[in-house]
Every structure is written in structure tokens, then in C-alpha cells.
């Protein structure tokens, strides 16, 4: 995982609630056995016309949002299935930050495993950010994870809360499994106890 560094990037606006993982990456693209190459399929059914051309109506196809790394979206983003293909597609497309009022649990976890910072803001903050983008498409925000701060040209900046463990992992780009395996002696000890307490699980 790439360490997450402070950046100034275009913020794209997706003013929709309950964006589900079936929209983020439709099921026909879940058959691949690789982890890469999903970006081209991100939001496929909304993004492309039936003939495969870009749907000009779809917000992320706006020229002003090209190269955006920040996605500002409505509440309950990422609801639906557990498919990690959703954050894979988001990251592969180029986003490394999402800002919304809420996320579905599994999606939220999956983001942090893939270097994506999912920021939670209040409804009022979201409304202000959305209004700022709508008034000035192509506007750039600065995201500073170390100081848990977002700044915007119109002064809608804010600081956000994030679990320090997630913050640390994103900043360092550390592998979760390696971290857990530092506790392998505790896992071993737990298993010894587990076998005594629940022997029927081990036959």
C-alpha cells in the first residue's frame, strides 16, 4: 500500500445518497481473479452509454472533474455487497479520498485496506462542500491526513475525526497482516485456551 501523503486535488461532486457497490462496480466485472484494472469499469452503468461511449450526463464525466482524487458524495456511500472490487475500482480510477456523511461498514473497512481515506463530515459540512464544488467545478481541496484537516478555497475547511490506528496505517502504508502477526504468540495462546474451552470445534 502506498503511504498517504498530503495533497491538493480536484474534488468531484456526486450528489447522490445510498450509492451502492453494484453501481460502483457492476457484477459483470467481478469475475476477474486479479486485483487491478477495475478503474475503467468504475460506475460502469452510469458512466457509459449502451454503445460504450461516455455518458455526458454522468457527473464524473465532466471535464472539470478529470484527474480528481477527492470524491464528495451523499450519505450511506458504499452500501450493499462486501465486494472489495468497489474500493479497488475507486482507487484504480484515481481517487484516494472520499468525503461523505456516512458509509456502509464493510465498504468503509475496505477503503482503508486500499489506501483510500474515507472522511466523515456533518450534513452541514457536506452541504457546504457540495455547494462550493457546484459553484466552482474543478475546485481543488487540500487534504492533510497527518493533521486531520481539509482546506478549501472558499473557507469550508474543517478538521475530522479518524481512528488513530487507521490514520497511522494509511500514513505509513503498513500491511495489516504483518501488524497482526506481531501478536502471533497471543494468537497461539488463545488457540490453546480455545481448544480447551470449545473442544468440539477442533475435531
Amino acid at each position, binding site marked *: 500500500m502506498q503511504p498517504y501523503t498530503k495533497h491538493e486535488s480536484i474534488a468531484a461532486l456526486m450528489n447522490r445518497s*445510498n450509492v451502492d457497490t453494484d453501481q460502483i462496480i457492476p457484477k459483470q466485472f467481478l469475475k476477474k481473479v*486479479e486485483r487491478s484494472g477495475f478503474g475503467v469499469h468504475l460506475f460502469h452503468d452510469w458512466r457509459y452509454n449502451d454503445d460504450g461511449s461516455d455518458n455526458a450526463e454522468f457527473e464524473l464525466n465532466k471535464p472539470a472533474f478529470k484527474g480528481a482524487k477527492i470524491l464528495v458524495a*451523499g450519505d450511506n456511500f458504499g*452500501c*450493499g*455487497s462486501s465486494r*472489495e472490487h468497489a474500493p479497488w475500482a475507486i482507487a484504480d480510477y484515481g481517487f484516494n479520498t472520499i468525503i461523505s456523511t*456516512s458509509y456502509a*461498514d464493510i465498504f468503509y473497512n475496505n477503503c482503508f485496506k486500499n489506501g483510500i481515506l474515507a472522511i466523515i463530515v456533518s450534513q452541514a459540512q457536506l452541504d457546504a462542500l457540495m455547494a462550493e464544488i457546484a459553484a466552482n467545478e474543478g475546485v481543488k481541496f487540500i487534504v492533510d491526513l497527518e493533521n486531520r484537516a481539509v482546506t478549501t478555497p472558499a473557507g469550508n475547511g474543517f478538521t475530522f475525526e479518524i481512528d488513530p*490506528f487507521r490514520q497511522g496505517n494509511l500514513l505509513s502504508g503498513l500491511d495489516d497482516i504483518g501488524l497482526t502477526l506481531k501478536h502471533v504468540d497471543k494468537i497461539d495462546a488463545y488457540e490453546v485456551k480455545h481448544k480447551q474451552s470449545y473442544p468440539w470445534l477442533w475435531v
Partner: protein
Amino acid sequence: MKKTMYEKIWDSHLVVDVEGQAPLIYVDRHLMHEVTSPQAFEGLKISGRKVRNPHSILATMDHCVPTKNRDLPIADLIARKQIETMAENCLENGLNLYDMKSPNNGVIHVVVPEHGFVHPGMVVVCGDSHTATHGAFGALAFGIGTSEVEHVMATQTLPQKKSKTMLVQVNGELSKYSTAKDIALAIIGKIGTAGGTGHVIEYAGDAIKALSMEGRMTLCNMAIEAGARAGLVAPDEKTYEYLNGKEFAPKAAMWEQALAYWKSLPSDVGAEFDTVITLNAADIAPQVSWGTSPEQVIGVNANVPAPESFDNEGKRKACESALAYMGLTPNMPITDIKIDYVFIGSCTNGRIEDFRSAAEVAKGTTVADGVTAIVVPGSYHVKEQAEKEGLDKIFIEAGWEWREPGCSMCLAMNGDELSKGQRCASTSNRNFEGRQGKGGRTHLVSPAMAAAAAAAGHFVDIRTL
């Protein structure tokens, strides 16, 4: 301190809880299918790690498998490769796999309970959001992403944040025509698809106690559609009876030992929940979803809502766009909605009880002109049992197709799908845009409601039949 069932399971599975790090919890059972596992195996291989406890894993093939012409090679080459990769990965790592040819094959969340692989008090994970199904046994069961699948394979643990607890109390008695599916939909209609976010739901009350194990599985299955991490039902005599004698259930003296433990699991009387929701079962009419989110659901005897009936701007907009996508007009009766397709199956409603209740309605009827109706058993064992009871004949005589097991039209990955604009009465769990095929329109219902719609060509209130 009085504890909820969730807290008891959490506490007994805590492996590491140190400052500055997410708590690590132990995983007893790991379920797998072909779609969310290949990249995890690849990651394991690249890092030179091994599967820590192969015996904790049970795998199947379900999402991409064809439901007809199973003898032929899978025509979709990418899907075929995914299936082959699953077989190779399981062989290489010594995992128990019910492959496409196995008599035990079927949808993971239907197969696992059939073999008694999940018991009360366990922590169960799967790279699949509908893992919540197994909460029906009083197990903490939840969906994880592929990175987490790899994590569990390598460490048998998972970093987790402790969830909040929600009690959903369903009092009274369900009407004869309403089912666990209707309870699940009514709850989501009430609290919304984000209503349970950050929570583990415990379902309780007389209406829940009265449900069969199959019904409890249907209910817990859709906890995820309410946004919850997991759903739980306290184990009781029905749970023990269901498990007793199953392949992976404890035997002899160990059964007694396990039983004593299981009986200690239900929430203590007076344990406190962070959130409490109460419903009256008698008020729950057979439900039909009208929109593109499971929370957009209403009783069959009601009308399609108008956007202005919502007091919140977001919901108004969501209603407008859902009605446009679904091709419905505000205030039209639900029973006027004509359908083109009917799908009975999935991890939500693909168990024997579901086919019995649908067959009861389908018996002696004929599928309406212009309607395609398919029945997809959740597993080969369900199929076999249904055939033993003659249910297949009832469906076939009524003009339905009787298929091989798989996820099929629940997510339409295997080629079973709607065409643009087609409308389906479906017993599955999600009515998202394009879920059953691009441009397809999904209405979530119970099996009996689906069967009634198949015969009429539109939704009908089964209470009036």
C-alpha cells in the same frame, strides 16, 4: 455486568486488545466462494504465507455457476477461469470445497447450515455481505472484504471495532400470510438501509421465537440491508434440534458440553442495548419493494408513494429517481404493477420452506402469459428434498422452470438476468439499479407473493386469494 449476546461472543473472542490498535478477534469459521477469494489467495502466495487453520474453512462455488446445462463447460471464459482458480486454490491449501459437481454444492449461506458448520457463539466470516445469515444460530457472522479474507486465512483473526448493539423487538403474532421476509423488509422500511450502521442487531420477541430456523436465516440474512454489521437470534430448542446430528455438529459427550455453552449465550435479562426498535408483527402486511433501495418498500395493499409524501429532501429525490428508473407512477396501487419475470431462490429465500410456501400458492395455477418464472433451489440438498416432496412437479406443471442451484438472478453474474426494462418479482435481497441486469427492475417479495404474482402477471395481495 449484564451482557448482550453480542458482548458475550465479542468478549470470548478477544485475542488482543491493546491501546492504539484495533482489537483483534478470533475467527472460528471462514466461508468462501469464488468471487471474493482469488485475490486473497494470490496475496497469501506472494507474501509466502500459509492458511493457518484449513479446517476452519468451507468453500463452495455459487455466484458464477450456470443453473442449466451444468454438464457443459461454462461458456463465459472469465467466469470459467474464476471457477477453476477456486478449485486450484482449495486443492493447493487443503480446503474443503463443495465444487459444482459435488452433491453438497449450492449457495454458501444455504449449504453451510445444512452441514451444521456454524454453531451458536461462533465468530463466522465470509467475503460476502450476506454472511449475516448465520446469525440465525446465535453466531456473530459478518461479511468482510477480500483483504480481510487474506487476513483471516493468514492469522485466524481480524482487527475489528466493537459494534453498538440494537435490539429489534418484534412482538405478537405474524399473520398467516406474512413471513420472515416480510419482517425483514418491514424493519428496513422502518429504520432505512443505514438504520443499523455501526450496530449488530439482535432480533427478539414472540414473532421471532415463532420463526423456523429457515425463517430466522431469512431475517438475519437481510440485517445487512438495514446497514447492520450482523444480525443475531438467541439460540433455543429449535436451534439445537436443527443442529443435532448434522455432519459438523458436536457428537455424544461433546454435544452436551457444547449445549451447556450455547445455553449461556442469550442476552442477560436486563442487558442494555444502544438502540431499541419495536414492531408489532400483526401490523406487517406482505411487503413489496417499489424502488431501488430495500428501504423503499411498502405493504402490498398500499400505493406507490409520491415523492412529496416524504418530508426529507434526500428521500424525496431518491423517490423521484427510483420511480423514474422503475417506470412507476406515484399513487398507483402496488397490485397494478405488471411483471415480466419471477425469481424464487437466493441465500435469502432458497431453502426448502421457501419452496414449500411458493408451491402451495403455485399449485394448480399457470404462469401468466408473457411471464418467465424460474425456481432456483439454494442447494442440491434443497433440490433433492423438494423433488422428494413433488414440489418440482407443481412448479413445472404451472409453467415454471426448475433449475440447478446457485446465486443466479440474485445478482445475475451467471448469465441469468433481466433485459433492459424487464420487471421481476424476486425473492432475493437487493433491488439496486441493474442488480438483476442492466436496466432491469427488481421488486423484493416473499416466495408466496412471488408465486402469486407469477400466476396473475401482477402483484396480488395473497391475503385475498
